[in-house]
C-alpha cells in the first residue's frame, strides 16, 4: 500500500511543477534594481525602522499609518532611496563626523559640551517630555529666524504619528512630547525641500540624523538638499516601537485612542505609560518589547551622534534634559537661548554622565552583535 502511494507520488514528481507553479514563475519578475535591493535587504526582512528618508523622493514609497511601504516597482539601477537608507551598509561612503576641537568618545560620539537643561516656558513644560528643551530651542530658533520652519512629528490624526512642518510656536507646541513609535518624519522633510523650503530645522531620531548625513552624498541633488537644513536636533533613542502591531495589541487590552501622551520613564521603572481620555495607563515594558522595530536592534547610536544638539532624559531628574552640544551651531544656539532666558542650564552630574556613556556603549555592543547575527 505504502509503496503504491509512494510510486504515485514519484510519478507526480516526475511530471514536474503544476500549472499553477509554472504560471507563478512566469509572473515573477527578476529583481535587481536599486529599489529591489532596498526592498530585499531592508523592507522584506522587516528591518525598516520607518525613518522616512526614502519617502517623498519618488512615488515608489509611501509612509502610511506607521509603516514605510513599497507602492510599486522602480526599474532604475541606481537610486537615492538605497543611498540614503541608514539600514543599508555604507560601503565606501565615509561620512564626515565633525573633527576639530571636540571630544570624541567611543560611547557618546563627538561633542563640545554635555550639560543638563530645562525650559523656562510654562506652556512648553506642561506638554513636553522632561525638560522641554527641544520644543524651547525650536521655538527659539524659529523666533530668531535661525530656521524658517522645522520638521517635527505630529500626534497623528486618526493614524500613526507622522512628520509635519512647523512654522510657529503653536505648531511646535502641538508636536511637543515623545511618540516612541517610528513615524517617518523625514518624509515631511523631503516634501518641504520639494516645495523649495530653505533654512530648515529638524528634530529626529539617531537613524534619521544618520540619514541626513548620508543625504549629502546622495544622487545628484544630495548636497543641495543637505544644505537646506541648518539645524539638526537629535533625540536619544534606545529603540522605536512598531505603531500598528503595538496599538492593535493595546486596543485588544482595552486602550481607546486618541493617545494624548506616552512615556517610558528611565530605569528602573520598567513601564510604558500612555495617557488617553480615560487617563494614564501603565503596561510592563516586557509586554511592549515584542513590538520594538526589528531594525532598531542593529542600531549602534543611542545619542544621535550626527546631530548639532542631542537631547534626552536624565535618570532621576525628571524636570531636566541631558543635552549634548556637538557643533558650533549647537553650542551657540544653547548659549543664546540661555542668555535670552528661554532655557536654564546646569552641569550634568558625573554619575549621570557615566550612566549615559554606559547605556550608549551597551547599545553599540548589542547593535554590533545583532548586526553580525542578522547579516
Amino acid at each position: 500500500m505504502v509503496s503504491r502511494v509512494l510510486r504515485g507520488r514519484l510519478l507526480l514528481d516526475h511530471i514536474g511543477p503544476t500549472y499553477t507553479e509554472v504560471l507563478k514563475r512566469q509572473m515573477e519578475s527578476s529583481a535587481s534594481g536599486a529599489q529591489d535591493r532596498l526592498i530585499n535587504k531592508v523592507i522584506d526582512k522587516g528591518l525598516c525602522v520607518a525613518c522616512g528618508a526614502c519617502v517623498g523622493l519618488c512615488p515608489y514609497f509611501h509612509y502610511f499609518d506607521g509603516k514605510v511601504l513599497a507602492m510599486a516597482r522602480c526599474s532604475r539601477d541606481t537610486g537615492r532611496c538605497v543611498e540614503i537608507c541608514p539600514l543599508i551598509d555604507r560601503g565606501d561612503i565615509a561620512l564626515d563626523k565633525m573633527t576639530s576641537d571636540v571630544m570624541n568618545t567611543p560611547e557618546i560620539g563627538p561633542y563640545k559640551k554635555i550639560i543638563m537643561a530645562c525650559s523656562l516656558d510654562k506652556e512648553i513644560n506642561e506638554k513636553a517630555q522632561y525638560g522641554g528643551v527641544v520644543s524651547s530651542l525650536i521655538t527659539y530658533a524659529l523666533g530668531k529666524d535661525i530656521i524658517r520652519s522645522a520638521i517635527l512629528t505630529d500626534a497623528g490624526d486618526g493614524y500613526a504619528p507622522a512628520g509635519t512642518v512647523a512654522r510657529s510656536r503653536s505648531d511646535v507646541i502641538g508636536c511637543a512630547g515623545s511618540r516612541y513609535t517610528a513615524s517617518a518624519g523625514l518624509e515631511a522633510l523631503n516634501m518641504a525641500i520639494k516645495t523649495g523650503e530653505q533654512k530648515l530645522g529638524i528634530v529626529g531620531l539617531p537613524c534619521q540624523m544618520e540619514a541626513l548625513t548620508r543625504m549629502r552624498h546622495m544622487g545628484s541633488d544630495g548636497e543641495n538638499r543637505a544644505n537646506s537644513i541648518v539645524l539638526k536636533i537629535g533625540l536619544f533613542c534606545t529603540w522605536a516601537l512598531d505603531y500598528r502591531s503595538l496599538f492593535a495589541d493595546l486596543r485588544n487590552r482595552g486602550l481607546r485612542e486618541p493617545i494624548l501622551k506616552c512615556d517610558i520613564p528611565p530605569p528602573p521603572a520598567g513601564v510604558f505609560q500612555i495617557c488617553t481620555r480615560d487617563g494614564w495607563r501603565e503596561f510592563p515594558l516586557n509586554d511592549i518589547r515584542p513590538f520594538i522595530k526589528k531594525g532598531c536592534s542593529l542600531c549602534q547610536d543611542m545619542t544621535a551622534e550626527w546631530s548639532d544638539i542631542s537631547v534626552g532624559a536624565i535618570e532621576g531628574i525628571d524636570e531636566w534634559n541631558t543635552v549634548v552640544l556637538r557643533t558650533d551651531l549647537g553650542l551657540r544656539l544653547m548659549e543664546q537661548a540661555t542668555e535670552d532666558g528661554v532655557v536654564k542650564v546646569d552641569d550634568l552630574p558625573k554619575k549621570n554622565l557615566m550612566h549615559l556613556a554606559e547605556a550608549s556603549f551597551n547599545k553599540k555592543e548589542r547593535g554590533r552583535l545583532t548586526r553580525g547575527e542578522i547579516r
Partner: protein
Amino acid sequence: MKGISQRSGDIHLLLQGNEAIARGALEAGVVFCAGYPGNPSSEIIETLAEAARDLPIYVEWSVNEKVAVEAATAASFTGCRAIVVMKQNGINVALDFLTNLTLSGTRAGLVLVTCDDPSGISSTNEEDARIFARIIDAPLLEPTTPQEALVMTTWAFELSEKIENIVMIRSVSRLSHTRTRVLINELPSFDPRPHFDTGLSFHTFPVVAKHKMRHEKLDLARVLFEKSSFNHYEGAVRPELLIVSSGCAWTYVTEAVDILELSDRVGTLKLGTTWPLPKGFLKKHLAKCDRVLFVEDVDPFLEDNVKSFGADICMEIGPKEYMGKASGHTPSCGEQTPASILRVLGRLFSVDWQDHAFMDKVSPIVKDIAPPREFGLCPGCPHRGSYYAIKTALAWDDRDGFVSGDIGCYTMGIWPTGFNQVKSVHAMGSGLGLASGYGKLDRFGFHQPVVTVCGDSTFFHAAIPALINAKFNGADVLLLILDNSATAMTGFQPHPGTGKTAMGTKTDPVDMEALCRSLKVDVEVADPYDMLSTAKIIYRNMQQKGPRVLILRRKCALVEGRERGFPYKMRVDQDLCLGEECGCDRYCLRIFRCPGLVWDKHAQKAKIDGVICVGCGICSDICPQRAILREERE
C-alpha cells in the same frame, strides 16, 4: 438597423447575423423578447428593442439570464411567441430553469438563442453551449450564414410549437457579427391575445413520465430534421473524405475546399439540425466513404455524437477512420479559421497551400508593423482610478491583501492596466461569493484582507445573493461596487439602476444604497477620480469587520465623453518632468499606464497624446513632480 421593422418582404437588406436572427423572430410574429447583454449576443435584443418603436412587441433587458428565460416562458405559457437571448455563459445561469422547463413543456413558440464566443475573444471562457441542448433534451439548430439564421429562427418557432418545447439556436461570434445581404420576408400581423388556459398546468411531475415525454418530443424533432433543408451534402458521389461540419466552420470548409480545388475529391456534409441528429440522412452519407473529418467550433459535439451513432450502425456502414479533435487533426480548443482547415486538408491531401515566396517577402516587412498591444482600460476610465485607489490601500495595509474580481470591463484588473490587483475572476457575482468565503477563514488563521469588486449591472445580476450570504453568515467582506452607471463592456445597455428600460421607457431606478442599507450593511460612496481620498476610505474599511459596501461612482468615460465631455486639456510641462531620472522612472507610463500618456522619445520625457487623452485629469494627481497640468478647456 434601418428597415428592420418594415412589414413588407421580398427585398434584400444588409444584415448582421444578430439582426437577421431578430428579423427572423419578427417574421415568426414574436411579441415577447428578453435577454441579458453579453458579447456576441447583445445586438439581437437591441435590434428588437429598436423594432419595438414601430411594432407592437415587448422587449426587455432582464436582470439576468435565468429571469430572462422565465419571463419569456410566461409569454409562451399564455400563447405568445417569445425569444430569449444570451451569450454562452448565460446558459449556465439559466440552466436550472431550462432543465425543468423541458420537462414541463411549453405552449406558444419559445426560442432560446445562445451566441457563443469561440476563443473567448470577449468572454471569460469559450464554453460550447451546444452541450446543453443534449442536457436539457432540446432541439438544436446551427445557422451558417445570416440568411440561414433568419430562416432558421422563423422555423424554430414552428418547431417549438410542434413539439411543445423550447428550441435552441446556436450562433458564434463570426456569424453574429458578419454582415451580408439577406432576403427578408413579410411580417405577420401581431395579435397575440395572451391567455393562460387554467385547464393546463406546466410542471415536471410525474418526473419519469415527463422525462419520457421529453424524449418523445425529441424523437418528433428528429423526424422533422430528416427532411430539413438545413442539412445538405455537396461533393463527389464517392468522395475520398467526408467532412461533417456545422455553423460558421462550414463556411471555412467550403472556402478551404475551393482554395485547394478538392471539390471532386471531398464531400461536405453540412448539418443545420445538430441535435437530435438526423440519423437517416447521416447514415446515407456516412456510407459514402471510410474517412470522416469533423470541423466545428470549440467542442467535439458533432464529432462525439456522430461517432457514437457510427458505432451503433457500424455493422451496416462498416468501420470508419474518424478524424477531428480526438485524433488531433483539428485543434481541441479555440476558434476555427479558414487557415486551420487549410492546414488540415493540406496535410491530408499533401497540398502545399502556402505561397512561400510571398510569405518570405512579406513577413519581414509586416513583422514590426503591428506593435504588441495589451488589454487596457479606456482613457478617462473610472476603473483606473478605482484600481489605483485599491492598489494604494492594499499596499498601505501591507497584510498581503488582494482583490477578488468579477465580470465587466474591470475584469481587466487582472492585467497591468488595472495594476494586476485582481487575483481571481470566474462568473458574474462570484467575486463576492468567493469573498464571503474568505471572510469566514479568520477562524483558521487567515488574515489577508480581501476586497471584492463588481460592476453595477453585475451587482443586480448575481451579487445580491452573495451579499445576503455575507450578511447572513457574518463574513468580513468589503464589496466595492464600481458603479459607472452603464453595462459598459457589452455596449451601454440599461440595467435596473439606470432608470431606463430596453425600450427606452423611464423607470424608477433601483437604489443600490437603499438595497444594501435594508440589509443593515454599511454603505459609503466615494469618487474613483479622487484616488487618494478613496484609498483612505478603502483602507479604513479594510480595518473593520463584517460586510461593508463602498460604491465607487463615476460615469463610464465613454458615456461621459458623449454626454458632456471632460473639463480639461492636459499638458506635460517637460521642464518639470523627470522622465527616467531618480524620483520618477516614467511613473505615469510604467505604472499608471493611461494610454493618453506617451513617451516623447526626442525629449526623453512624458507627453500627452492629444488624440487619445479625454481630459479627465486624474494623472495630474499621480505625477510626483506635478508636471502633468490640467488646463481648463476653452
